[in-house]
């Protein structure tokens, strides 16, 4: 079957690509567009390492076909910092040692940004439940939760 021609807005840029109909958005990002910041931990939507937003909705890119991105807006970890300036979440993840090996970090950051867009002042419990789709095996989640709450505080301006 012929590869499919897809146009999407990825991290603010109009990008077109060809993909096999069976390729997932994750495959496309990593293998076709070399946006390897999005990680694959399971391929079945159970670990969240491949989290991106699709038209503003937090999804696992392993559970989206590349062809489905046609006409849509995709945001990945590569679009999170503003040039050299890290997003507050990125800074707070560093400050609070919210990452060790770092393989889950891009997905957790994308998920955390999505949380703060929905809820600028989440409680610890709300952070934990929102991030329950993102597995981390190194940190025990503690410093991640602390970093998200601290970033939210800074982003609210107090």
């Amino acid at each position, binding site marked *: *079957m012929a590869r*499919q021609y897809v146009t999407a807005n990825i991290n603010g840029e109009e990008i077109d690509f060809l993909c*096999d*109909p*069976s390729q*997932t958005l994750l495959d496309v990002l990593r293998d076709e567009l070399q946006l390897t910041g999005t990680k694959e931990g399971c*391929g*079945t*939507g*159970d670990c*969240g390492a491949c*989290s991106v937003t*699709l038209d503003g*909705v*937090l*999804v*696992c890119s*392993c*559970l*989206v*076909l590349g*062809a*489905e991105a*046609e006409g849509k807006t995709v945001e990945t970890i590569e679009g999170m910092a503003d040039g050299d300036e890290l997003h507050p979440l990125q800074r707070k993840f560093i400050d609070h040692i919210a990452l060790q090996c770092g393989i889950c970090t891009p997905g957790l950051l994308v*998920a955390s940004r*999505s*949380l703060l867009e929905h809820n600028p002042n989440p409680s610890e419990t709300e952070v934990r*439940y*929102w991030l*329950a*789709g*993102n597995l981390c095996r190194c940190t025990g989640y503690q410093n991640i939760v602390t970093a998200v709450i601290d970033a939210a505080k800074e982003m609210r301006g107090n």
Partner: protein
Amino acid sequence: MEQLRYEAPDTLEAAVALLSGESGVTRILAGGTDVLVQLHLDVIDTPLIVDIKKITELREIVKDGGAYWIGAAATGMELMNHPDFGADWPGVLDGVQLIGSIQIRGRATVGGNICNGSPAADSTPAMIAAGAVATIAGPNGRRDIPVEDICVGPGQTSLAKDEILVSFALPARPANSGDAYLRFTPRTEMDIAVVGVGVNLTLDGSGICTSARVSLGAVAATPLLVTEAADALIGTKIDAAALDNLAAAASAAAKPIDDKRGTKEYRIKVAGVLARRAATIALDRARQG
């Protein structure tokens, strides 16, 4: 896999025609949270995927008076974000909110949850308890069936290969109605129900239960509508004795198997425990509403 064709038609008719025209195994893609997993794990090999998300009717959530029409391809997150739905059908939303994770709910649909045919689908027992009616479109037009008639066995539905689930209708609710869904999982999130229970009930002015529906998930080959459990509530004030009878009826109706997610013995017992707890929540909601 290399012959896989992806189609995303704009109309229901075109979608039905694509399905009718393909001789091999087909898959309908809504949220993709089950279909793409099956593709990844190589448990299905399909030449055609029909994405139904571009069909407007299937994406809509319409409130008309007290009734709802929920498009089969509306996502869990869209239901969660609906201004009224959670207040009107809190038990259905309980179920929707337990599907997978935030990422999964951003994609997963109630229609897909049912059509995947899993007896453990979290949104199904609450929908059955709610008395939801499904509209199904096929080459010969549309037909309506109760939601409990969709799943006929693990991974199997009563829909023909060229039929598409269009929407669910939820009736307007009488005053003093409440519903609830509870499931048991070892983890707080990202888990599959070991047992799920949906309860929907209505009280009269004096607090007597005038109607009830109880549904169990993950305790049989399909989600169950358990009339004996509902009968334990109807005509009572849902007092301790009624809840005992409900728990006993729920456990008696459970016909589970031992599997990696729980033992038969455990599921039977917990079906009763959760039925009691879900009914208590539904009762509180009915009293408030």
